[in-house]
C-alpha cells in the first residue's frame, strides 16, 4: 500500500512537471512577452532592457528552471492587465468558486443518489419513467443552455431569483462567503442548480444501474428473508456496495466539474476563478492563464490520488501491489 501511494505521488509529480513545461512553452513562445511587458510603443532599447531585466535573454533551460523555481514558491508573475500578483488574484476568487462547486456537489450527490435508489426500486413505475426521461434531458441539454433556461424561467418570467452576481457576502478572515446572507443564498440557487445538472443525471444513472445489479444478489435476498427492515436492506446492505464505484467515478470526473464551473460562472457573472480565466483569455493575460492551468492541474491530480487511495481503503478486495 505504501509503495502504491509513493508510486501515485511520483506519477502525479511527473504529470505536474509535464504540465508546467507546456505552460512554460506557452508563456514563452506564444505572443511576444517582451512586447507584452514593455508595451507596444517601447523603443528597441527599452525592449532590450526588459529582455535583460526579466531574464528573457538567458538560455532556454535556465529560463525553465527559474520558471519552475518561481512556480514552486507560488510566484507566477504579475497580471499583464491589472499588474497584481497572478496567484493572489486567482486565490482571491477561490472562495466564490469553491462555495458554488461545493453546493453543486452536495446537491447533485444527495438528489442524484436518492432518485437513483427510488428508480431502482420500481424500475417500471410511472414516476421512475418520468425521472429517467428527466435524466436523459440532464445529459442532452448542454450546461450553458440549461443555465439560460433557468434564468428565463426564474429571473425573467417568474421574477423569483436574481439573474446574476453573488449578492451580499460576509468577510470571515481571508474568506469571503455568501453562505450567511439571505441575499447570497438566493444568488447561489440558480448557478448551483445549473452546475449540478449534468453530474446529477450521471450519478442518478450510475446509482440506478448499480442498485439494480446488487438488488438481485443472493446476500440481498438473504437480508430480505431474515426479515430486516427495508431501510436496513436498501441503505446498509445494498447502497454501501453501490456507492464505492459511484463515488470513484464522481471523484475522477472532477475536471469536468471545473470545466462546467467556467461555463456556469460565465452565464451568471459569478465572480469566481472561471470567470477570471475567460476574461484573461480575451485579454491574452498569460500569467493568469498559466497560473489557472497549474492550479487546476494540481487540484485535479490531488483529488484523483485521494480518490484512488479512498477506493483502495474502502474496497478490501483491491490492493495495489
Amino acid at each position, binding site marked *: 500500500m505504501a509503495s502504491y501511494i509513493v508510486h501515485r505521488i511520483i*506519477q502525479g509529480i*511527473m*504529470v505536474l512537471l*509535464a*504540465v508546467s513545461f507546456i505552460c512554460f512553452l*506557452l508563456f514563452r513562445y*506564444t*505572443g511576444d512577452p517582451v512586447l507584452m511587458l514593455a508595451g507596444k510603443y517601447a523603443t528597441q532599447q527599452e525592449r532590450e532592457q526588459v529582455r535583460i531585466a526579466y531574464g528573457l535573454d538567458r538560455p532556454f533551460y535556465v529560463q525553465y528552471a527559474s520558471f519552475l523555481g518561481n512556480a514552486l514558491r507560488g510566484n507566477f508573475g504579475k497580471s499583464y492587465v491589472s499588474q497584481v500578483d497572478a496567484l493572489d488574484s486567482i486565490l482571491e476568487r477561490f472562495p466564490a468558486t469553491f462555495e458554488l462547486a461545493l453546493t453543486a456537489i452536495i446537491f447533485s450527490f444527495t438528489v442524484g443518489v436518492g432518485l437513483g435508489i427510488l428508480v431502482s426500486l420500481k424500475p417500471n413505475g410511472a414516476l421512475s419513467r418520468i425521472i429517467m426521461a428527466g435524466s*436523459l*434531458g440532464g*445529459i*442532452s*441539454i*448542454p*450546461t*450553458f*443552455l440549461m443555465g*439560460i*433556461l433557468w*434564468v*428565463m424561467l426564474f429571473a*425573467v418570467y417568474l421574477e423569483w431569483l436574481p439573474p446574476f452576481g453573488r449578492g451580499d457576502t460576509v468577510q470571515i478572515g481571508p474568506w469571503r462567503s455568501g453562505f450567511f446572507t439571505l441575499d447570497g443564498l438566493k444568488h447561489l440557487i440558480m448557478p448551483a442548480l445549473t452546475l449540478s445538472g449534468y453530474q446529477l443525471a450521471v450519478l442518478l*444513472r*450510475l446509482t440506478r*444501474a448499480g442498485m439494480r445489479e446488487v438488488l438481485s444478489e443472493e446476500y440481498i435476498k438473504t437480508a430480505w428473508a431474515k426479515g430486516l427492515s427495508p431501510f436496513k436492506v436498501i441503505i446498509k446492505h445494498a447502497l454501501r456496495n453501490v456507492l464505492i464505484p459511484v463515488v470513484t467515478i464522481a471523484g*475522477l*470526473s*472532477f*475536471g*469536468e466539474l*471545473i*470545466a*462546467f464551473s*467556467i*461555463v456556469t460562472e*460565465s*452565464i451568471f457573472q459569478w465572480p469566481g476563478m472561471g470567470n477570471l*480565466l*475567460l476574461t484573461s*483569455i*480575451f485579454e491574452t493575460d*498569460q500569467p493568469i*492563464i498559466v497560473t489557472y*492551468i497549474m492550479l*487546476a*492541474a494540481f487540484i*485535479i*491530480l490531488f483529488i*484523483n490520488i485521494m480518490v484512488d487511495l479512498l477506493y483502495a481503503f474502502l474496497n478490501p478486495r483491491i490492493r495495489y501491489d
Partner: protein
Amino acid sequence: MNVQVMKKIVESKYVYSFLRDPSAIIGTTIMVIFIFAALFAPVLSPMDPYDLEKIDLGNFLIPPAWMDGGSFQFPLGTDDQGRGILSTILYGLRTSLFVGFSVVVISTIIGIVLGMLAGYYGGILDSFVMRMADTVFAFSTTLLAVLLLGVFESRGLWTVVLAICIADWVKYARTIRGSVLEIRDNAYVVAAKASGAKDFRILFRHILPNALPPIFVVLAVDLAVVIMLEATLSFLGVGVPITEPSLGMMIAIGKNYIYAGMWWMILFPGATLILLVVAINLFSDWLRDELNPKLAR
C-alpha cells in the same frame, strides 16, 4: 450494390431489431432530416445570413411570423443584426455537424492507431500513451478544449476541430487498447503469427475488425458530446469566430435580449441543439444494446 448483398443486409439482425425499436427510428429520422437540412442549407434557407450584401440591419429583432410585427419573410424572426433565425439555424447546423463529424472521425483514426500499437506492443509506448490518456482524461475534454483554445492564437473552424481532437482521442485509444489486449492472445491471432504474418497484417486484418464494434458505440455517444462541446465553446466566445454561424453563438447573442422578452433568439436554436443531441443519443442507445450488450446500463 447487387441483389444478394441487399438481401443479406435487409435480413440481418440489425435491421430486424432496428425496425422494432421506435425510439431508434425516431432518433435516426431526426438525424437524417437535420443532416439533409444542413447539407442543403443554401437552397432551403430563405436567405444567406452571412452574406453581408443580403442582410439588412433595418430588419433587426423581428419576432416570429405568427406574432405581432412578424413577417413571413422571416418565419422564426430575426436577431439583432437582421439575420433570419431560421436561416442562421440551418447554417449553424452545418457548423455543428461539420465539427462533430470531423472530430469523431479524426479522433477515431488517432485513437485506433495509438490504442492498437499500445495494446499490441505494450512496453514504453503503452505506458506513455496510457499516462497521456490518464492526464487528458483527468483534465476532462471540456476543460482541456477551453484551455487550448484560450492559448491558440488563430481562430477558425479547424482550430476548434483541432483543440477538441487533442482533448478527445483518448476515449478511442483506451477502448481500442482494451479490446486489443483481450484479442491479442486468441488462437487465431497466435495462428496468424505462427504462419508468419507480418505485424501490420495481424493488426489490421485480424485484430482491428474484432476490436471495432465497441468503437462504434463510443463514436455515436461521442458525436453528441462533441456537438454540445462546440456549442459550449462558441457560447463562451472561444469557439468558432463570429464570421461563422453557430448555434452556441446564436444563444450567446440571444442572452443579451432575454430581458426584452425576445425569447425566439434563444429557444429556437436551443431547441434545435437539444433535438439533435437527443436524436443522436436515442440512436446510440440502440447501437450500444445491439453491438455490446455488456456495456448496457
